[in-house]
């Protein structure tokens, strides 16, 4: 039904477009000077029909379901809902709905079948009502728009207002989504902190998110100190950056400044392929290749290495991050004006000196941007660490030990059957909140550093 309604709206609004355009063309043919060209008169009709009517349809569809549910329930025979709580009423409504869809279990009471029939009927009526209203409203707007076609009518301004409104709406979507995410995290975190003291979470050195499943079960009470988990994230991130930053920077500098153009034409796309490898494949690589290699290498030196090391997960993550850093650095170096490069070379600077003293400082904001993005990715990266890092939170900074990360813990806490009223599940939201805050702080901090030390050209 909705598809038919939308199709009808489309037809009517296209009709309005041609009506208005034709009217405006006729005006112009009579020798009148128009403020807006005929195309804008047509677009004005089209947009001012579609936009409000689509809003109307969306609102109608939002309210239609709940209203019909309510009518259905209130139309039931007196006494059939007596002594029922909310859950019981919901159950009856669900049964009526499933009967209306033709799925009948057992022998339902007659009044339920009647209610289901009425439910179907109300939906049909609502659909036709919507269809009628949309036709009337859109035809009305088309007529109104047609009557406004005149030499001095500013159709172009109208179109510009409507489109800029649409653009504004689209740009706010991202902002409101972010606010929604923050709100969701915040509320669940607050519920977590009602159950677990905030000091335990922030300063606790133990992370054992087990809780008794039954009242009488003898189990550990569960410890929710986030420090060991966060330390694991930190160790893996540092390992990843130790690999990614130098390799990424140097490869970008080589490709941008020293490589012959033919090598560059081949090497740059190949490097960027790394960015397209799915992280789960990196995960395979970490557990099947890197971790055993590190382990046997450690064994040959007589160093005990655990099977899931932070080093393996971190170094594979570092490989994943190389293209981020190198492509940001490459872009930043390419953006430095050629005149600066020429200026340094003309003073007798070598290429290396030019890069180091002139190009690099000028490119710092872009480079730091790339590194920041890499850090955010490293902290938030999940798949590689789920596969290659451990599950047990241990308070260590030794990269040869097994560590766990914030993201791994969030995944394990939320996997499987979960109930959203115990601290174990809610802890995931608190961890997510902290992850969000940490990346935010890093971003703000780095922006300030960049602004202070950048060498701005022009």
């Amino acid at each position: 039904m909705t598809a038919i309604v939308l199709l009808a709206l489309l037809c009517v609004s296209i009709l309005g477009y041609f009506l208005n355009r034709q009217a405006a063309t006729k005006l112009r043919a009579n020798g009148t000077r128009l403020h807006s060209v005929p195309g804008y008169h047509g677009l004005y009709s089209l947009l001012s029909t579609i936009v409000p009517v689509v809003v109307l349809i969306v609102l109608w569809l939002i309210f239609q379901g709940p209203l019909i549910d309510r009518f259905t329930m209130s139309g039931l025979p007196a006494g059939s809902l007596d002594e029922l709580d909310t859950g019981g009423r919901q159950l009856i409504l669900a049964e009526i709905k499933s009967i209306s869809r033709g799925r009948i279990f057992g022998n339902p009471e007659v009044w339920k079948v009647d209610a289901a029939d009425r439910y179907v009927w109300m939906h049909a009526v609502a659909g036709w009502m919507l269809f009628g209203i949309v036709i009337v409203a859109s035809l009305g707007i088309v007529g109104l728009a047609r009557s406004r076609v005149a030499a001095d009518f500013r159709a172009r301004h109208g179109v510009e207002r409507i489109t800029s409104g649409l653009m504004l709406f689209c740009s706010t979507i991202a902002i409101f989504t972010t606010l929604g995410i923050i709100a969701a995290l915040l509320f669940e975190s607050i519920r977590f902190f009602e159950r677990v003291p905030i000091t335990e979470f922030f300063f606790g050195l133990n992370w054992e998110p087990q809780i008794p499943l039954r009242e009488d079960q003898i189990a550990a009470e569960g410890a929710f100190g986030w420090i060991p988990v966060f330390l694991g994230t930190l160790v893996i991130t540092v390992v990843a950056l130790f690999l990614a930053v130098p390799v990424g920077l140097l490869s970008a500098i080589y490709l941008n400044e020293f490589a012959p153009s033919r090598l560059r034409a081949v090497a740059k796309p190949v490097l960027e392929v790394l960015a397209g490898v799915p992280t789960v494949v990196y995960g395979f690589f970490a557990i099947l290749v890197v971790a055993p290699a590190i382990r046997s290498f450690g064994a040959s030196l007589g160093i005990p290495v655990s099977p899931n090391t932070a080093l393996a997960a971190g170094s594979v993550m570092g490989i994943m991050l190389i293209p981020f850093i190198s492509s940001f650095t490459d872009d930043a170096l390419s953006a430095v004006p050629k005149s600066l490069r020429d200026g340094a070379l003309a003073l007798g600077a070598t290429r290396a000196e030019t890069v180091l003293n002139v190009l690099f400082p000028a490119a710092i904001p872009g480079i730091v941007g790339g590194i920041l993005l890499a850090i955010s990715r490293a902290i938030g990266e999940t798949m590689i660490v789920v596969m290659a890092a451990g599950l047990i939170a241990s308070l260590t900074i030794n990269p040869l030990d097994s560590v766990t990360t914030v993201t791994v813990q969030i995944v394990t806490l939320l996997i499987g059957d979960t109930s959203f009223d115990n601290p174990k599940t809610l802890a995931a939201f608190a961890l997510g909140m902290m992850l969000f805050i940490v990346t935010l702080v890093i971003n703000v901090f780095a922006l300030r550093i960049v602004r202070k030390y950048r060498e701005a050209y022009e």
Partner: protein
Amino acid sequence: MMNDMRKIERDTVASEIKIQARGVQVFYGDTHAIKDVSVDILDKTVTAFIGPSGCGKSTFLRCLNRMNDTIDIARVEGDIHIDGDDVYDPSIDPVQLRAKVGMVFQKPNPFPKSIYDNIAYGPRIHGLARTKAELDEIVERSLRRAAIWDEVKDRLHEPGTGLSGGQQQRLCIARAVATEPEVLLMDEPCSALDPIATAQVEDLIDELRRNYSVVIVTHSMQQAARVSQKTAFFHLGNLVEYRETGQIFTNPEDPRTESYITGRIG
């Protein structure tokens, strides 16, 4: 007064040859940009290259310090000798060459560093100063020679990009002289400047002639007449005429030169 002095000095041009170019050809890919140019550029003289846009004068200038090396598709043939050394000989290090042949560009291009660091950059990479005091002295001397010391002496540690266009160009000249070059190449150094800044830079060029061989590319014939002792006229990649500035502007030999300086071509 200044003009009188120039007239007098014009007659006493040093005869020593600093740069000798023979049969220079430059190709950009398939384009033949410079066709068989031979020229002798004298020491302690200002030599002006004039000619219509695209005639190859900047390209030829950039051959002299091998800045064309930075353009992948550029190819240079022929001989260029500076003080008898072949510039394009494989044994010549372009880095050392460029330390000896300084260059000022059309658009001021100060580094996004402090005024002090802009000037000190060349001396630092070439190790011209052993102590901080020596470096300070080089910076001050260079800024004084570029006639900008008084304007910037109180803000040496502010960014060079914050100066006005004319100041930036003089800063770039100071930066070029700080490495103690023997030849100074200037590629339309005044084209982005207002008349006052232009006059300052022109005075400076005249001043620099005492120590350097200066080669200046310019679109302004008045400027060539004001600052140079020798003038070369380029047209479509050819060196058409190369003579004393006074003669080329008053009594050109080639009809193309005459057409250009009287404004009929170019």
